[in-house]
């Protein structure tokens, strides 16, 4: 509870934030603080200067366009949950955000913080990976974009270089019927800690075949893991596809080396992947078949 002495600054713009980040060694970004402040309490935190972006309006916008929803990195989970744009275009974002921690944390925690922390129990890294999202990284040389897959590098690690800020996230809006499902295995109670998650995304193209299939597991590998063999198996099938077990069986679970910890053993995590993968695919396919979220 007792932090090290720390310097604090509240920039007025993202440019100023980046400038501050580059001017002070050991400076870090404070957004919602719902993970970072706890790390600082344990005095295992890296930063001696906090650049507080939580009040920067330019990072808190949810914008709608024909192709994308853009969400500012400092947008809170609660704002995502209550966003009409999200509700209309990609409700899975709100449904998933609603499962994070509790009301208090959702009121301050941000989507950008969730991504930058990139704990394997975090909700957004797998979801954004499955949605084919683009991460907008802002540095002193301006804005750069990278895919979610490129962004989430390993346990707690992202592709953000020092001096860079995650400014926003762009999430594509499918033009076809689609389905999204985020299926966590929470241990320690309901929506307490995601030991393993599987997220699935499917779309149905004009001829009625499944396309843009993405199945992503977390908790079993350093980064959100694309289960490509499953994706390939489902890709091109008809909307009536139902051989979930067959699809999931294509994935070589023994290749996974999930971590063992006090929350769950590696073996249990590995065993849960096919279970959750079937469930996630089933949910996503049911949505597609209902023309849901068209």
């Amino acid at each position, binding site marked *: 509870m007792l932090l090290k002495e720390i310097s604090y600054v509240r920039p007025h713009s993202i440019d100023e934030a980046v400038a501050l980040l580059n001017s002070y060694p050991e400076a870090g970004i404070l957004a919602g603080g719902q993970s970072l402040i706890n790390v600082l309490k344990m005095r295992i935190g890296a930063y001696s200067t906090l650049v507080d972006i939580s009040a920067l309006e330019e990072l808190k916008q949810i914008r709608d366009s024909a192709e994308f929803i853009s969400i500012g990195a400092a947008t809170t989970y609660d704002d995502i949950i209550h966003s009409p744009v999200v509700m209309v275009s990609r409700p899975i974002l709100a449904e998933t955000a609603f499962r994070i921690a509790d009301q208090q944390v959702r009121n301050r925690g941000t989507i950008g913080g969730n991504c930058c922390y990139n704990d394997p129990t975090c909700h957004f890294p797998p979801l954004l990976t499955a949605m084919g999202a683009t991460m907008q990284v802002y540095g002193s040389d301006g804005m750069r974009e990278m895919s979610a897959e490129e962004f989430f590098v390993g346990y707690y690690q992202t592709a953000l270089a020092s001096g860079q800020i995650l400014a926003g996230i762009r999430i594509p809006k499918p033009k076809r019927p689609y389905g999204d499902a985020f299926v966590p295995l929470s241990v*320690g109670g309901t929506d307490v*800690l995601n030991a393993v998650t599987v997220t699935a995304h499917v779309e149905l193209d004009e001829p009625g075949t499944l396309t843009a299939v993405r199945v992503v597991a977390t908790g079993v590998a350093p980064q959100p893991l694309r289960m490509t063999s499953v994706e390939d198996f489902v890709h091109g099938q008809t909307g009536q596809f139902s051989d979930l077990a067959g699809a999931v069986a294509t994935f070589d679970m023994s290749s996974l080396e999930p971590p063992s910890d006090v929350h769950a053993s590696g073996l249990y995590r590995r065993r849960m992947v096919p279970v959750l993968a079937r469930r996630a695919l089933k949910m996503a396919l049911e949505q597609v078949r209902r023309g849901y979220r068209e």
Partner: protein
Amino acid sequence: MSTVFTDNKTDTIRWTGKSIPRKEDDRLLKGQGRFADDIRRHNEAHVYLLRSPYGHARIRSIDVSVANEAPGVIYILTGEEVAVLQKPFMEIAPPPGGLMEDYCLAVGKVHFMGEPVVAILAETEELGRDAADLIEIDYEPLPAVVDGQAALQAGAPLVHEEAGTNVVWHGVYDWGDIEGSIAKADKVVKIDRLHFHRFTSTPIECNAAVVEYYPGSGEYTFWCNNTMPQFAAMFMGPALGIPTDRLHFVTQDIGGSFGNKITTYVYLTICAILAKKSGRPVKWTEYRTDHILGGSHGNERTFSDIVVPVMADGTILGISAAAIDDAGAFPRYEPLGSVIWSQVVPNVYRFRDVRIDFTQVVTNKCPVGPNRGYSRLQHMWMVERVVDIVAQELHLDPVAVRKQNYILPEQMPYETPNGCVYDSGDYPRCLDMALELIDYPKWRERQQTARGTGKIIGIGIGSTLDSGTNNFGQARIINPQLPFSGNGEVSNVKLDLYGEVVVTIGTTPQGQGHETTAAQVVSDILGLHPDQVRVLIGHDNARNVYTGFSGTYASQFAVTGLGAVQGAAEKLRREIVQLAAGVLQADESEIALRDGSAFVQGQEERAIPFIGLANIVFANNATMPPGLDVSLNCTYTYRPPFKVPDVEKKFGNLTLTYSTQIHASVVEVDEETGQTTILDYAAVDDSGRLIHPQIVEGQVHGAAGLGIGAALYEALEYDEEGQLLTSNFYGYKAVTAIDVPMMKTAAIESPSPFSPNGAKGMGEGGGAPLHAICSALQDVMRQKSGAIIKDSYNPSERVYWLLQNAEKSRQGVSVEESGHGL
């Protein structure tokens, strides 16, 4: 249950038995409670404790030279100095446990992760914490022992070399004729091992204290939240080399304890030393990680070689087992747990032949202490597991087996094999009520229809007793030298100068509503409204009365606390009546009390208000009617009618009252993941006569909530090196509102013939949810793999593996046909 009773005799309203608004609520709801950390003293300094990162290590050296120069540092205390300033704390155990040396800071080596090693006193908490980062300690890590059974093995690392063994206490409890019952049994069920896991109730308020030393009188004042201060004093006085009357404890509002705040004397001693050294009031604030690492854990217990002789109809004749109780690194309340379980030897059952070979050991883990249901829940869990395993392995109905074996209401009062007397109760009726609350037949049907859906429904029962009001004489079974027996609580009820009714007691309430229930009792006796009764809460040995047993623990307030209040109020009533009779020139038998006045019955104009009576005694005593000797200041000590137990036979009445708690649970297990969801839950309790039904129901809810958490989500898990892997609420998954169901409750009232008010102590709950959920999971396994639930902690993963590898769990479980009857 909320009717207002009218007492025929006095024609006054009866407040007891009624759920009146709690007197505590107003201040607590406004944020005006006074909790230990809310206390501030002028010029206070702050204590920060640097704790061991190791489970077991020798301290080679501690270098505080840099830290000493850090900003704001006032004093740095290490074990080296403590060893000079403090005698080792008294040990309750005889040797070998009695040889174990316990100091407030680690001396020479660290025995568990989180043990305080250095205490830094600084101007602020932050500066103390900053200075801690500058302290260099050279440790030599030692192999750790973290398992009770392993601690007994030859060559195991010794937690305390000075004792020469890890055994704290060993004894064999043998009642009846277990060999005989094995010989005559139709079948003998054997279970190799059952394990009751380590968890803790973790009150939301952690420990805290402000400690001040007055050199003038040599007195220390502890504003703290310790819940058994005179127990603390008994350890601290000799350790500090001062008379215990120099230790002045003040407790006010306490944010939960569940027993966990009893053993904080170790920390209070650190504060006392620093307060004297520095001449400053010192403040210690504990945070959650400190609390989970170094507070007080529940006892972990492993049962092995369980042998259960049974008749073909399911009648259980007895149980033989070995128990190894893991006390953690220091026996700080222990080894009392090694005997306290024997308050409930047969649980609610009739079997008479019992042998338990009981060993308590130390390990490199946090010391244990009382934890809601203390020591009895482990034993009753084992008995309940035995009942379900017997039912499953003999293909009998678990409900029928329970009813077959329950002690029956017509047998009450019932003397158990070890001489405890169950005062009253109706277990079959409570079970029927619990089954009715969950609609048992409906769930048995649903169980069938759920087959093949991937979800398995299980129904379980937990039958338990909440033994309340200890006979401390049982401590002599552990150590015949101990000068304890019986129990007692004291209360003072007085009229203050202006006729106000003021009540004091020595208890340390932490949510049980003592202010309210004490006021109810006094109101009935003095003819008042509870708003007219002021109850000074908390234990304050300079202000309030107290005994050596004062405190709030062991489910005893309704009996000892209210028994004392009742006695004191009745004494005061007699004095008021005497005085009023004298003043009003009436016969004592004509005097009645109502609304703060004494009057002559039938002639209400002949009255004198309490203020008038108080005036006569305190400020106008020349007008006192002649021949009267009244003080209007009445103290009464309630002592339960206990005898010293027979130490040799380990026989005697160890508890005054026995509340019943019968729980029924319905769970659904996801076959593919092992995730368990509670679908329905019922708790029926019988706490004798209810003083405040709503408070009693609240205790039932609370005990059930903690038990559900412990059964499914909460565990203190150490790795092989003694690292606690669940040292905060991230790892220790305290149950949230989502996962405790809207339980159904009902109560019956079997008044206790032994307590002064017919009430029974209650509140600990006997761990019934652990039993009921394990029982429901056993019912799940019975339909599927036949796996045996051998652990009290069953998170999703464990349930998953039980479904996957049933055979492994069935190893070591067998039913043997006895020679007889074949």
